[in-house]
């Protein structure tokens, strides 16, 4: 098994009722890559997946897999295999028949099918379950049957449509590692659709963030989290405290923004110039409390400062979530739980954050509620 690259050129999708699910999109997914498409529900990510698998024809543009144009070729003739959100295992067939179904459709003999199914069930650590019905398996086992069934047809590209969403948290984390492992072993190109940023960041070589039918940013997981390019990518992946204001001065790649909370200095991501409207963003875990700055080691001289009053303080295991009010604007701060019960417990705080952790962008659409 080996992967092939997938190339989307100007692909768009408009449904007969006039709804445009996908704006014209160019996207190249490299052979053998674990690629995730991350976005809120209704952003068009499933539509892209269905166009790659062949269940939908794009309104414009072309799709090529391994250099072969795919338009007009049905899903049963594409080198892709799709793992459905519901898994869509065949409940009346046994596990091995499920796995071997693709081979059965290709007319492979029964003994050869059985042998191949056993190999694949070995790969997904289900070797002793082959004669059971899918209904007798646990959620994680069914998941693995679905993977084995898709791999049985030796696809060049495996498409996964939020396959882990039905599992509980522990199992989901375990399956992430397994999927990543299987991908490494088989070297098949994985295209993984999810609205769960944790899944996308943990497994992917690269992640595309989608919003309202358009791809916002394509980057490695680290880059996406640490250096988001757009307000949407910045707010959808991880959390952000957002302040809005006007650019006062610009210097050395930094911009100083005048906000209701005072002057805030940050990285000038979009190259804004003086007088432009801007938003200033900083992540909750990059904000420090002044009275606890001794734990941080040396801080730069220039620091952003905001006065705030504690509203709520929740302990969430390793982290302490603090929700504060800064002149009518709510601010979220994450502290590491040091074991000190008085940490951040007092009412009034001075919040500090470095300009390098602060991002200044042109205002734009942001993620509202994340599922």
């Amino acid at each position, binding site marked *: 098994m080996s992967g092939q690259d997938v190339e989307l050129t100007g692909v768009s999708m408009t449904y007969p009722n006039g709804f445009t699910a996908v704006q014209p999109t160019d996207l190249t997914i490299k052979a053998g890559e674990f690629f995730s498409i991350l976005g809120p529900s209704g952003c068009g990510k499933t539509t892209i997946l269905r166009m790659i*698998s062949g269940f939908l024809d794009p309104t414009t543009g072309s799709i090529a897999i391994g250099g072969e144009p795919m338009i007009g070729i049905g899903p049963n003739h594409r080198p892709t295999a799709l793992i459905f959100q*519901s898994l869509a295992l065949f409940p009346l067939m046994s596990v091995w028949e499920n796995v071997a*179904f693709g081979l059965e*459709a290709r007319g492979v003999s029964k003994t050869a099918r059985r042998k191949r199914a056993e190999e694949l069930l070995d790969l997904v650590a289900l070797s002793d379950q082959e004669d059971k019905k899918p209904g007798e398996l646990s959620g994680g086992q069914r998941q693995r049957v679905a993977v084995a069934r898709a791999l049985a047809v030796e696809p060049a590209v495996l498409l996964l449509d939020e396959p882990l969403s039905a599992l509980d948290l522990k199992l989901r984390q375990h399956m992430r590692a397994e999927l990543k492992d299987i991908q490494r072993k088989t070297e098949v190109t994985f295209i993984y659709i999810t609205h769960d940023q944790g899944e996308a960041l943990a497994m992917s070589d690269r992640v595309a963030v989608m919003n309202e039918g358009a791809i916002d940013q394509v980057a490695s997981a680290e880059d996406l989290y640490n250096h988001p390019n757009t307000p949407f990518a910045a707010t959808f992946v991880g959390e952000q405290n957002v302040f809005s204001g006007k650019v006062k001065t610009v210097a050395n790649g930094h911009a100083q923004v005048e906000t209701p909370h005072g002057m805030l200095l940050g990285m000038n991501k979009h190259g804004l110039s003086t007088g432009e409207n801007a938003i200033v963003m900083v992540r909750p875990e990059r904000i420090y409390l002044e009275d606890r700055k001794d734990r941080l080691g040396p801080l730069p001289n220039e620091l952003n400062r905001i006065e705030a009053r504690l509203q709520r303080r929740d302990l969430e295991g390793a982290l302490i979530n603090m929700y504060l009010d800064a002149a009518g604007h709510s601010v979220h701060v994450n502290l590491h739980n040091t074991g000190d019960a008085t940490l951040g417990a007092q009412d009034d705080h001075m919040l500090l954050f470095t300009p390098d952790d602060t991002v200044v962008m042109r205002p734009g659409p942001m993620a509202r509620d994340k599922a």
Partner: protein
Amino acid sequence: MGELTKIYGRGLTFLFVGLVTIWILLMIVVPQIRMIERAFTFEDRGGETAMLALDIDHAYTEKFQIEQQLLTLQQQGSSGTKSSPAAPSPFTPSMTVPGAAPTAPGPGLAPSPSASPQNAMSAEERQAEAADLRSQIAALESRITDMEAQEDTSSGEAGMKERLSLDNFTTMSALHFKIFLMTLLYAFTVTVFAFVICYPVAYAAAMAESRNKLTLILIGLVIPYAINELLRIFSWVMILEKNGILNAFLDGIGIIDMSAGEGFRFVASNGAVFTVMVYAYVLFMVFPIYNTIDTLDKSQIEAARDLGASVWKIHTRVVIPHAKPGIAVGSIMTFMLSAGSIAAPEIVGRGMHPDWFSQLIYRRFFEADSWNQGSAYSLALLTACIIFILITMAIFKVGVKDIAK
């Protein structure tokens, strides 16, 4: 029972259970027991007592005929003086039924030749004639009294010997047995036709994405069923008749010339009966299949397609296995209904097509007047249908529980 009492209270539960019990007893158990009893009771129609009963019937018929002749004679006597002698009584010739005579055994029973119209008959001759007829009646009456006395001593009130036996079944003639087997075959054929037609329709309806399409399909099927079954059958007769719509259409496109008397007689053939029956029972096939396919996760079909399965493979391996309970229910209903249907073969077949067993049962009951043999035939059909159900359930590996779903 305790559960029901908890939910509905004592009074309502009593009412429900009582009504259901009465319904089961009166509508199912008692009639079935009566039918089974009749089926296993044999009336010996060829025996001595039966022949005696037949003779009594004939004697009564004859006596009635002679009485009519006498009446006519007396009317002639009273009217002959008033009306013109040339006016013949229109009743007189028809009163003598020569055809009835040969079946009547016994001496002195031949109709009197003097009963023919003789307007010129004198009063004396008429009186002699009347006296003769009266003596014949008296002879018959005494004979009937004798025979009835003999009947009373030899048998029960029904006039025929009755005994428990399997004879109602075993005396089924080879022809009737052939009709019985052919009917099962016909019903099976109708079921297969109905399935072939209904499966794609049910599949399309279940897969329809837009609501309008679904509504249209359902309306197209449901509205015809708001019309009485007889009307639906007769509308097919309108279509299939020699002067019907189908021939008019063929005439219109120039295949036949109706004005020259050409035209196909589509009705009165088994093909026509099958067509009408399939139409009459499609709904019973479509809905169970539609219901089961509708519960199939559509992504299973997509998954099969994505894995490279052909349309045939998708249906044989994914859709049909899932729809099995629905197919079994639809087949059972269609088979039972068509095996027992009488209206379609009677109206469409017009007696010119091979008989259906249901028609035979009807004739056993109401033409041969043999309710016992009719019951036996019905029981045979019922048993065959139950065996069909069990076989179908075994083939489809469907339990009663699956069907209830």
